[in-house]
């Protein structure tokens, strides 16, 4: 299921210890029958912090991301989807995550990308600790209060 495609390292889902190439992730979802690619890139925002430490339950996170990806492919008619999430220590501006999706048309690509992102935040066992002048702080809530998982499950 994860071994069929091109880079990033031939995998659709990756918890990455190192930085990743946005171009490669986008190239990996392009297909001749797709007219639309939507990519979300989350970056470390300067909120007065020095760095962000990402901790993951790697095996469980990859399983969850694979499941979320499969759901999105089926529910939104995506043609391809790649998710890469960093772990480890990041600095301001570094990429945390990329969710890249392709579809025949733009609506599915937007909706599928957003679904994967919201479900990732809600379900994937990943944690963030902000490290700043005032000390360290675990961020405890990742989900968007406006996101309704039930609604997200419907094919639009």
């Amino acid at each position, binding site marked *: 299921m994860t071994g069929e495609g091109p880079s990033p390292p031939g995998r659709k889902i990756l918890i990455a210890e190192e930085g990743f190439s946005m171009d490669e992730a986008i190239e990996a979802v392009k297909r001749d029958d797709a007219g639309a690619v939507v990519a979300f890139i*989350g970056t470390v925002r300067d909120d007065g912090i020095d760095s962000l430490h*990402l*901790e*993951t*339950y790697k*095996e*469980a*996170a990859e*399983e969850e991301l694979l499941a979320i990806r499969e759901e999105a492919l089926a529910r939104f008619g995506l043609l391809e989807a790649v998710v890469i*999430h960093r772990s480890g220590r990041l600095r301001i501006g570094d990429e*945390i*995550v990329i969710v890249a999706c392709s579809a025949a048309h733009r609506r599915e690509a937007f909706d599928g990308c957003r679904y994967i*992102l919201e479900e*990732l*935040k*809600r*379900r*994937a*066992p*990943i*944690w*963030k*600790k902000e490290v700043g002048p005032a000390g360290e702080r*675990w*961020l*405890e*809530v*990742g989900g968007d209060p406006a996101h309704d998982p039930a609604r997200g499950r419907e094919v639009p």
Partner: protein
Amino acid sequence: MLVHIRAFASFREILGKEADLEVGEGSTVGDLLEILVSSHQGLGPAIFEEDGRLREYVIIMKNRERIDSLEGLATVLEEGDEVAILPPVAGG
């Protein structure tokens, strides 16, 4: 029998990253958590409500499956099981 314990983020700071723990045959996830609570200060209030139920946002996994979809705290453990204790997630 030995079970493997993993803890993450704020729970890792209380419990340590991972450990093997000896528990009696037939022990449940609930039994295991009681042992951990009795030996780690601060863990009890972090994972349990005052009435003894697990806090809603705490996730316990046995072999990477949420115990919610097994038998909850009554889920029986076997030799070599991996039990993971997870605070609320915050990825993305």
